[in-house]
């Protein structure tokens, strides 16, 4: 019988993903004022991970959260999953670009804002093209983006404050 050798990084990813999934599930139980608007608390785990452990770990945590989280919630491969997954992918893409930009050092607040806006834009684009290609939906976009900026800013400041307290 083979034993699977695991590294410290694997353990770290597993712990962080578990934390993100817990927050993700807890948040999904909260009532939402408008479909599509959520505080995105799991985003805070992503940002903290990015600031401390870098891009590779972040990508794993994020993808694990979306896939495993949806398996636990029973939404895997449903429209909700498609939206969540496209949001995560877009957000990851934006973070990757931001992370790889030379000579620009973003902090938690910048990353958080970028991730939130990327998430919302990606999710919205997929919702529009795949599910409801109706022009009326476009009117929602600025409202959703306002929420994304607001929550992105707040969770970014929380993460930045938290990181400052970590020795």
């Amino acid at each position, binding site marked *: 019988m083979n034993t699977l050798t695991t590294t410290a990084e694997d353990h770290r990813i597993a712990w962080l993903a578990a934390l993100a999934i817990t927050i993700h599930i807890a948040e999904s139980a909260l009532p939402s004022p408008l479909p599509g608007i959520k505080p995105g608390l799991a985003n805070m785990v992503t940002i903290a991970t990015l600031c401390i452990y870098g891009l590779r770990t972040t990508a794993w945590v994020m993808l694990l959260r979306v896939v495993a989280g949806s398996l636990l919630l029973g939404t895997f491969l449903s429209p909700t999953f498609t939206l969540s997954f496209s949001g995560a992918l877009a957000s990851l893409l934006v973070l990757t670009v931001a992370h790889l930009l030379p000579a620009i050092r973003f902090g938690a607040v910048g990353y958080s804002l970028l991730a939130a806006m990327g998430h919302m834009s990606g999710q919205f684009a997929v919702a529009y093209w795949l599910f409801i290609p109706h022009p009326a939906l476009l*009117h929602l976009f*600025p409202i959703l*983006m306002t929420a994304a*900026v607001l929550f992105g800013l707040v969770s970014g400041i929380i993460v*930045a404050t938290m990181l*400052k307290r970590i020795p």
Partner: protein
Amino acid sequence: MKPALVTRADWLVIVASLALLPWLYATFWSSDDTAADKVHIIVDGKELPPISLHQDRKLTIRGSIGTSTLQIEQGRIRFVHSPCQGQQCVHSGWLSHNGEFAACLPNRIALQLSGGAARFDTFIY
């Protein structure tokens, strides 16, 4: 060295995202600004005073071969009836955007909408 709570780059992102929001509202909420609010009716080359599209009503206008009926409803206007043979004016249907026009040439009645931003400068068939 203690990292700054908010870096210079972060400030840039904050400013950019806050500036993006008004732009988003301007872009995605502007589709209605082409809606017209007035109609100009020209009878036999003479223009009547403009009529608001925000008051629902029926208009009967005497042209050169008979009486045409126009209907204004919820910011739109249409020819309901016209004594012409071709009935192209009636087939034009509802008009609601700035710059749109319809005419009953045999009866010498033309109407054009104005107010709001024009999405098109002129129309062809």
